[in-house]
């Protein structure tokens, strides 16, 4: 798919993955997440191969793929609670829900949410997981303009707070800021 790719990312830095469908954006993200093994070379987080990260170190890397990882039969709150308990976080999430305009649907089952709302819950999960490295695969799909604005704003807030992000997207200019890495596959 691709070879000879090398890049480093430090705190507060953003990397944008662009390229046509099938160029390997998702594959690269999954390698960075430690889900897929690279045929050669390695993806490391603080000099440790990502696939071998364990416990707290593992909690520093979060990956958001095409699916929102929501159980359709559980309510939004139940999904969030489960996710945070899994990641060992305790913060209250009412504020996050309010900001994402999800507080009205908080106790509805995920199956009844619109695709955009489910995307917002996924963003909430990402924010609440407290991970340092955000790996996002086309996060803006199904989001309305307001949702996209929120996503971009939260990403930059995350970067400003010393986080890192790798975003695969078809509209890089939405996220683009000076100093961001542009990786064309």
């Amino acid at each position, binding site marked *: *798919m*691709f*070879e*000879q*790719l*090398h*890049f480093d990312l430090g705190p507060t830095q953003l990397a944008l993955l662009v*390229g046509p469908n099938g*160029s390997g954006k998702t594959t690269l993200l999954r390698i960075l997440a430690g889900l897929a093994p690279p045929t050669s070379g390695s993806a490391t987080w603080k000099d440790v191969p990502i696939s071998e990260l364990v416990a707290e170190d593992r909690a520093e890397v979060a990956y958001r793929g095409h699916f929102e990882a929501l159980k359709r039969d559980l309510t939004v709150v139940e999904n969030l609670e489960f996710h945070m308990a899994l990641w060992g976080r305790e913060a209250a999430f009412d504020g996050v829900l309010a900001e994402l305009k999800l507080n009205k649907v908080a106790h509805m089952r995920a199956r009844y949410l619109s695709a955009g709302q489910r995307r917002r819950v996924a963003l909430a999960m990402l924010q609440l997981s407290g991970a340092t490295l955000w790996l996002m695969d086309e996060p803006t799909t199904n989001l309305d303009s307001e949702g996209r604005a929120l996503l971009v704003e939260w990403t930059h807030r995350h970067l400003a707070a010393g986080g890192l992000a790798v975003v695969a997207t078809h509209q890089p200019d939405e996220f*683009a*800021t*000076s*100093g*961001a*890495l*542009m*990786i*064309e*596959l």
Partner: protein
Amino acid sequence: MSEYFQMGGHGAYVWSAYGITLAVLIINVWLVRVKRRSALLRAQELATQAEVPRKQPTVRRLQ
């Protein structure tokens, strides 16, 4: 000679057992030969096509 093949009534079982074993051996040899031939043919085909260059991604920093 026929007495030999009779083997005291057990001839049928002994010979069919050896027959099956021989058949299995021959089938395996034949399967391997077919697999090797198709693999070689495929390798020859691939040898004629030019090697597909893999794309080199570019990394640049935005101003």
